[in-house]
């Protein structure tokens, strides 16, 4: 198999890799960069556990072939917390009890991040739609929805001058 060279940005750092073209973005993230925060739940784009941001939009990384990320920006869950500070979504998921086994959590947070980047004041229906591709078997979703609302409120309060 002829290898391909792909240049992209991963969590803010430029990367260049030469790999088999049949690798998915998920495999590259987990097996090459060993960023295991991104999970595999099905490998078929059905569960959302592997969700990452591609140029700010949530995608199932198991459905993205590595060549498709050429020149693009990839953000994984590890990219949301830098230097000890966590994203408002990570903080709200912890506080609201939106985490149980936690295996869906990184993907869920990335879908929510994509939503909040686009819409800082989402309705409950908009939140449900944004995470409808992310399966969770533990929580029944109630506290996840609350956590996303809480993060949106906290971000807004932060922008208004308060502490997040």
């Amino acid at each position: 198999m002829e290898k391909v060279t792909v240049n992209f940005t991963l969590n803010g750092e430029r990367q260049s890799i030469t790999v088999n073209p049949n690798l998915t973005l998920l495999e590259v993230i987990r097996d090459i960069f060993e960023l295991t925060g991104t999970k595999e739940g099905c490998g078929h784009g059905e569960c959302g556990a592997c969700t990452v941001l591609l140029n700010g939009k949530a995608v199932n990384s198991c459905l993205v072939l590595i060549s498709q990320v050429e020149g693009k920006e990839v953000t994984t869950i590890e990219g949301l917390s830098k230097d000890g500070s966590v994203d408002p979504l990570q903080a709200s998921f912890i506080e609201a009890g939106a985490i149980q086994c936690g295996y869906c959590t990184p993907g869920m947070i990335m879908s929510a991040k994509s939503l909040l980047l686009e819409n800082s004041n989402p309705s409950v229906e908009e939140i449900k739609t944004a995470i409808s591709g992310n399966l969770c078997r533990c929580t029944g979703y109630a506290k996840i929805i609350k956590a996303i609302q809480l993060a949106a409120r906290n971000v807004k309060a932060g922008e208004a001058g308060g502490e997040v």
Partner: protein
Amino acid sequence: MSEFKWVGKAYPRVDGYDKATGMAKYVTDRFFPNMLWGAVLRSRYPHALIKGIDTSRAEASKGVVAVLTHKDVPGLNAFGIINQDQPVLCKDKVRYLGDSIALVLAESKECAYSALDLIEVDYEPLPVVSDMEDALKTNIKIHEKGNIIEHVRITKGDVEKGFREADLIVEETYYTPRQMHTFLETEGGVATIDQDGNITLFVGSQYPNRDIIQIARSLNYPMEKIRVIAHYLGGGFGGKDEITAQILLALGTLKTGRPVKIVWNREESLIAGQKRLPMKITLKTGVTKDGKLLANKARIIADNGPYTCLGSAIMKLAVEHVSGPYYVPHTDLEGFSVYTNNCIGSAFRGFGATQATFAIECQLDLISKKIGIDPLELRLKNALRDYQSANLGHIPSPSVGIADTLETLKNHDLWKNKGYYLKTDKPYLKRGIGLACSHQGCGLGSFFPDYGAATIILLPGGRFALKIGCPDLGQGNGTAFVMIASEVLCCNPEDIDLEIGDTRSTPDSGSTSASRTTYTGGRAIIQAGNKMKANLFAEASRMLGVSPDSLELRPHCVAVKDSDLKVTYAEIAERLSKENRSLECYARFDWPTADLEFKEALGLPHFIYSYISEMALVEVNVLTGEVRVLKAVVSPDAGRIINRQGLEGQAEGGTVMGMGYALMEEIRQVDGHYMNKDLSTYIIPTAKDAPEIETVPVEKLEASGPFGAKGIGEAVCNPITPAIINAIRNALGINITKIPATPEDIYFMAKNKFDLLRS
């Protein structure tokens, strides 16, 4: 004000940060240098003889290091918690499509899976047993001993007398589906071996200590050279209680000397993994005209698939729970657990009580309709009370909160103002409200040793290490353990370093299953904590020169009562260190058992139960048959609440899981073959399906429990299923006896009643 500092509060998970940041390493997240990938060859036929296995082409394939078959299993080529009837690698027969025939070990996952196609197996297909009733009658034997794994019959009173005295007798048969746990992290893990032959597994498991017994037996290997670590886990729900990939992982690393990783893909998990076993439950129930339950006769058949796993125990729990949390003077309860060539049935949250709850709670609504009594009043009238005899004739521990949970629903606005909630503005939308009750035996039941154990160590700086075997599958027992320890030791949860689920470093505390973990672990922690407290008093008494009787715990220190004189935990730790000493306290707690034991049905009955009532508001579109669950109100009685946030999380998650069971989830099999094999065709609820859920707990304290707590992890998924079905009955007046009640089913059942298109 609460008498507790931590217990009963809504406390965020101790592992929340690691999980939210992606730092938590799950068992399938582990990578090791020089690691091999393992892939398992599954059966081509649901039932066949194996005439030969040729692995030579696969062995010659690029990247393949070894191909293992039954010949490579050094010890007992079988496993099973109850009966060792499941082969590690099949030798001469396959009994379902998930059977393991060979293990390929290769340099990459891709090499391993592509080599599977190169293994040649010579099969002689056999007729398939796919129906549980047929399994009882047919002369096709799945195992030599026949198709009945276990048969039990337990009677109380005189059921025929009960029927004679009854004003109404209702007979109905209920069918439940094969439900998949759908934990997001599939079965699997990684195993390593060191130069001294010590094998370490990171693997999805609910009871690492028991895994070691099964691995050692099949590998003919010393138990002390095997270590199993089950942390972190991406869900379990019962599906990781029995062996999944453990023995093959250990075998792979033993044979190659290299780290081995096996992670079942989603399709393998669906085909080979254990499932909630389908049941056919026939009930005959006698009742007086004013709604008093007199007699209940049940015949239960459970389709266990090809191997026992925990299936026969699950059938027995169905027998135990099939008359509901009610006082019924006369019962005659019979159960069969049978082999078929379908998917394996084993533990799944609720463990037989779920199936039983569906049957009896639908039956009660039928009765309520026939005799014209309000369904809530009917249940309240029959609700079991403290010191009454339960359905197997035993007296449960007097923490019977079922009536309290019903009263909670009765006083809820959704029940009191039904008329308001039932209104819709479209003629094709019909709303209904339904309710159901359930109970769940906590622990392993009579006969089986059931214990918990914990170790607490005082650490430098005045912190504590808390070590306990039971893994946290995700439900939050780890956080509950830390809260309980913080309460006893008068410190903050942040001052406790929790270690769980590691056979080398944590004491055997039994399985994380059976609604037993917080109760058992909690009691062991309290006992270990009290020992630690006594030791801290002794040290402080020596350091302060006062009598231990004059001392009390204050935050992070031992202090003299009514005085400022104190010594901190940190100071005690420092002093001990200087004296070359340390403080480590171990305690074991053994379960109390019921006043009755059945030699013919080991494990029955239970002594402590959690109780729960739940109601659901549904809206049915009669043009499409679609059901939306709009709201659920759940009233659990888990005794003392340890973590309010954890309890709500369980209630919400269990409700949505039970909703999937009611309306959408089923692995459909025809002649042992699977009709749906992925998450596009096996549908679980998404955020868009989940209802608004309100949790209104009652706390009927259990005297033997930690601060009065009982288990609740399972009961929470039981009542919602019949509550939804009863709500649909309330909306449309149709009698649903088979779940899942899909839109197709409901559409055709409702079609004749509401022919809106014609009008």
